[in-house]
Structures are given as structure tokens and as C-alpha cells.
């Protein structure tokens, strides 16, 4: 297998979301220097790179939290633009931030519906924000979301998030992203703060996302997790692409070398 096949787009499933030539500058810092990236449905694409490689910047550009200076976005081949978080949400792109963005004082069901609370029908004389909440509908939606993801560690959707474990919280944050009719789910270091058992729970949920035909972007530093869950691995370095590898055709050592020194053959060429 030649080096060319390791480039984005070759021997890969048709991309659901893809971006080309993304540039992003913060003042004098050139954070992204023409990055290409793609992810297909039913696939877990790992995004790896050393600190400062541009992983988080790229993800925030995809989520609309940052606006790219240059670059093109394609969804199922159609040219789209993402300039704010609502654009991304409308296109079905959801992000699970590392801090999870959960309200610990609210219960699980309330967190899943946060910002899009269902209200009871009728009451049209009142503005929407003052209509009665349909909290039972919220619980039903929450139960459906957890059933879909096969999360069985939560005993009650009425439990306060403040009393739950890190793995359970991660599952709630993922379920919220999935519940919003999303097709692309991006996870930022979902297992960074978790122990062994809880990491396994979260990885099960990520695999379940692949089975439900979501396009999953998975940012992590942990090679073991990546080789457990990812289908392809996209390596960034100094704000540019190094290569995209098929998991079955690479090794953790090769990825680490790519992250720290760039492509092995380039190193050889230079030598």
C-alpha cells in the first residue's frame, strides 16, 4: 500500500461531512493551515495530534464556534456554510464539549431537553416561554435516547446530574447530542477524566453511535481507546494534515511517530 492511499478520500466510504483547505488564524498564530478532513456515516473518525496541532480548533470550526478564514464545507457532497453554532445544529452537527455543558442542579431528563423543552399543546395565548412544560414527555424522550444508545447504567432519568459519575455524565451529554436529530457527533476527549470501567462504558456508547449510522468524530490522546473504537485515524501536526490511516493497517507506534515527527516516509525522504 503506497503512501497516496493514506491521503484523505482514498479507499474510504463516501464522506458525509467533509471540509477542504480550512485556514484559521488567531492574530499572528496560524492555527489551521489548509486542513482537509472528512467523516462518513457509520464510521468513527479519530482526530489525533500533539498539543497545539489544531484538533480542537478544527472541531470548533466544524461546530460553528469559530468561523474559518478560508475553506469549503460539504455535506453529502453539497456545498454548505457554517458560520455560527446554529448553522451547525441545523445541519445536524453536534459537539460534546470536554466540560460536557451539563447543569448539575437539574435532573437527567431536564438536561437532555435543555433549550428545546417540550410544552403541552394548547395555551396559545401565552408566549412559548410561559407555557406549561411537558415534563413527562421529557422523561419519555430521555428514556428513548438511552434505550437507543443502550445505556443501562442510569437507574432513573429523574436523578440529579450532580450525583452521577463521570461516565454517566458523558453518556448523558452524548445522548443529548444524539437526541437533537444529529448525523454528526463530535466528542472532545470523552474519556480523559474517567477510570477504566467508566471508559469502557463510554466506548460502548461510541460504538453504539456507529451502529446507529452516525458520523462520529473522536478526539483523544489515548492510543488504546483510539485503536479500540476508531475506523480511521486522522493525524494533524502544526495545523496541517499528516495523513489519514485505516486503523486495521496501522499501529499505535506509527501514529505516535506521525503525531510527533510527521509521516515516516517524509522523515526518510528528508534524511
Amino acid at each position, binding site marked *: 500500500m503506497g503512501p497516496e492511499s493514506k491521503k484523505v478520500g482514498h479507499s474510504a466510504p463516501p464522506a458525509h461531512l467533509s471540509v477542504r483547505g480550512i485556514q484559521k488564524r488567531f492574530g499572528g498564530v496560524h492555527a489551521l493551515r489548509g486542513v482537509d478532513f472528512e467523516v462518513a456515516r457509520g464510521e468513527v473518525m479519530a482526530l489525533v495530534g500533539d498539543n497545539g496541532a489544531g484538533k480542537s480548533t478544527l472541531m470548533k470550526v466544524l461546530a460553528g464556534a469559530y468561523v474559518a478564514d478560508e475553506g469549503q464545507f460539504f455535506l453529502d457532497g453539497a456545498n454548505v456554510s457554517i458560520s455560527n453554532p446554529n448553522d451547525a445544529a441545523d445541519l445536524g452537527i453536534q459537539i460534546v464539549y470536554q466540560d460536557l*455543558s451539563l447543569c448539575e442542579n437539574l435532573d437527567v431528563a431536564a438536561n437532555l431537553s435543555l*433549550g428545546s423543552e417540550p410544552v403541552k399543546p394548547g395555551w396559545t395565548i401565552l408566549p412559548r416561554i410561559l407555557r406549561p412544560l411537558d415534563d413527562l414527555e421529557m422523561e419519555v424522550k430521555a428514556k428513548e435516547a438511552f434505550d437507543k444508545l443502550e445505556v443501562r447504567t442510569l437507574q432513573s432519568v429523574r436523578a440529579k446530574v450532580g450525583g452521577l459519575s463521570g461516565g454517566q455524565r458523558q453518556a448523558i451529554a452524548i445522548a443529548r447530542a444524539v437526541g437533537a436529530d444529529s448525523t454528526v457527533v463530535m466528542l472532545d476527549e470523552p474519556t480523559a477524566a474517567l477510570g477504566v470501567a467508566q471508559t469502557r462504558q463510554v466506548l460502548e456508547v461510541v460504538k453504539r453511535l456507529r451502529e446507529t449510522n452516525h458520523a462520529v468524530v473522536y478526539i483523544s490522546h489515548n492510543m488504546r481507546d483510539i485503536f479500540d473504537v476508531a475506523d480511521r485515524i486522522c493525524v494533524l501536526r502544526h495545523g496541517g494534515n499528516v495523513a489519514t490511516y485505516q486503523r486495521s493497517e496501522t499501529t499505535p507506534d506509527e501514529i505516535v511517530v506521525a503525531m510527533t515527527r510527521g509521516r515516516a516516509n517524509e522523515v526518510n525522504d528528508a534524511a
Partner: protein
Amino acid sequence: MQPDGRISVLDRFRTMRETRIGSFAPVLLALAAIWAWFGLALPLWDLASGQADGFRAIFLSPRNIYNLFMQSALIATLAVGITTVLLLGEIDLSAAATAGVCAALLGVMVLAGMPGWLACLIVMAIGIVMGAAQGVLVAYVGIPSFVVTLAGLLGYQGLMQKILPTGNLNVGDPFVRGFTRVLIPDIWGLALGALCIVLFAYASLQKQARRRALGLEVDPPLALWGQVLAFGTIVIAVIVTLNAYRSLPLLLVLLVGITTLLGWITTSTPFGRSLFAVGGNAESARRAGFNVNRIRVAAFGIVGLMAAIGGIFGASRFGSVSYTAFAGGSLLLEAIGAAVIGGTSLFGGRGSVWNAILGALVIGSLGNGLDLTGASAADKLMVSGAILILAVAVDALSRRDGSTGQ
């Protein structure tokens, strides 16, 4: 946290506080303790030590309970308003001064011959503007609410003195005085109470039936009927006690009505949910699409409205407007104390307007009971301070649970 699997008393206490009824438990216990002390323990002690001829239950007499409720009503009105900003994690130090300005304006307007109802409506609108203006400074200019409302406290105190140069004004308007003078006839009071209980039971059963139909977890019947029974007992006991002295005053009906409305808004509407979300984690609320700034302004508008209503109630009860009764007195600290003693967290995201009413009763009972035993103003201040510290300590202990979860 508990490797041996045992649950400590503190943990059990924390889990209890998480449930809906359990959040009332600490303040109800405090209230029961204060009532038992002033109503039973002190009279029994007097009897045993021979200082009294017979058992004199002055504190728990219907007459005193009536006065206690009326005294606490003004504190409760402000505390209910302050609770809405505390839910956001903000504070309002200007509520009592706002109430004072509104009461003074009300007095001046009815003195000039304006009809009472119109003056009340105008004053309520002014209260909303005074509150919302501070909300704009907090939300859009980004000044901490403590500073904005401290400035509001000073400014509105001065404004009240400007409106009332003599510091005192009698209010004789029959409409305004009517809030405290009008009594609901005994039989109608009981009928109203019965109606409330039936509605409460109906709503609970209805919800239970829907839960079952949707296949959701169902509360045990014991808990359901326990709630209905507890609610019914309290309502009937209060109405019977008030009837035994005079009757149910309109003021209390209005206060309960307003609190019900605000309680419903804060717990059962998207707006109320947004208050809790912003108080719990403002950044998540923003990411979830809530307009955090507008929510802040609305919450401060609600405090302003409740302060104006408090001003109207105060003018009605005292029959006069005085600087010391509102802006210059201890009303503000009593109202904030009532909200906090009720279990509303100063850190935001946890609390309930109903707890503020109970907290106001705790503060009111303390003052009333100490007055009856002939305690000095100095004793009252020190005891109130101790109770407040106790309440905030309870809040801080139950708060620690959430932050160690991760």
C-alpha cells in the same frame, strides 16, 4: 466516597434534600422547633417554676398566629421576589428600598386623589422598571449584581426621602387598606381551602395516571397520598386557626395566589427552567440556546414587581408609609435571610419560592416570640444572626455534594 457501603447521616441528609418534599424538611423542622420552644417549652417552664398561675399558650394562640402571619407577609412578599434572582446566582440588595419608593409613590398618588387601583397598577409598573433597569446593568453592562443593587439600595433610599421629605405619610385610601382589612367569611375561607386541596389531589392523581400510561416510573402511593394529606392538613389547620381569631385576610389569599403563580412559572415553564439552568451553569445554558441576558433582566423585573407589591401590602398593613418601615429598616436583610433560611442557595440553581414563605415565617416567628418573652432588640439581632449562619451552613454542606461528584 463510602468504601464500606454505609451511608453517613450527612449523605442521607443530602439525598433527602434532593427530593421535592424533602427540600421543605429543614425549614419546616426549624419552624416546628421555634414554635415548640416559644409555644410549649417556655410556657411549661414558667408553669413549672411557678412564675405563671396556669398554662398560657400566648404564642400559639389564634390571635398571635394571625398577627404572626400578617407580620411575616411583607417579608415573604419580598423574599419570594428575591428568590427568583437567587436562583440565577445573583442578589438584589435594593428590594426593600424599591418597595419603599413604590409605597411612597402610592401614598403620594392616593393623597392627590388618584383612585387606589390605578395607583397600585402604576406603582407595580414602576417597580418592574426599577428592577429591570438594574437587570440591564447586570446583564448587558456586566457589573456584578451585588454592586449594582448596592448602588440601587443607596439611590432608592435617597429617592424615597426625596418623595417623603417628612419621612412619614398616612395612607387612608379604602382600596389600599382593603388588602388587609377585607376578611374572607369563615365558611368561604374553608370552601376555598377545600377547593385547593381537591385541585392539588386531582393534579397529583392526574399526573400519576399519565406516568403509568406512558410507562414511566411511578411514585409509591404512600408518598402520593402522604403529600396530599400533609398539604390538606396544613391548609385546613391554617384556615381554622385564622377563623378562630378573625377570618382569612385577603392579604394572605393574595400572597398565596401570587406565590402559586410564581412557583408555577419557576418550576413548570421553559422560562423557569431557564432560571435554574442559568443558575446551575450559565455557560451550558448559553450553549443550549437560552438568551441569558434577557433572562437576567426578566428576573430582576420580577423582583421589582414583587417589591412594588410588597410596598402596597406594607402601606396597606401599616396604614402609613414610613422610611424606617421599608428602606431604612431591617426589612431587606430579613427578606434575604428568609429566602436563604428557606433553603434557596446563594450560589444559584437551587431553591423554591414556597421555601421563601416558610423562611419568612421562621424570621417572623423568631421576632414575634422574642418580643413576647420580653427580649431586647439586641437579643433579637443576635438570635437572627445565629439562625442565618445555621441556614447558610446547611446550604454549604449540601452544596458540597454536587462539586465532589466529578
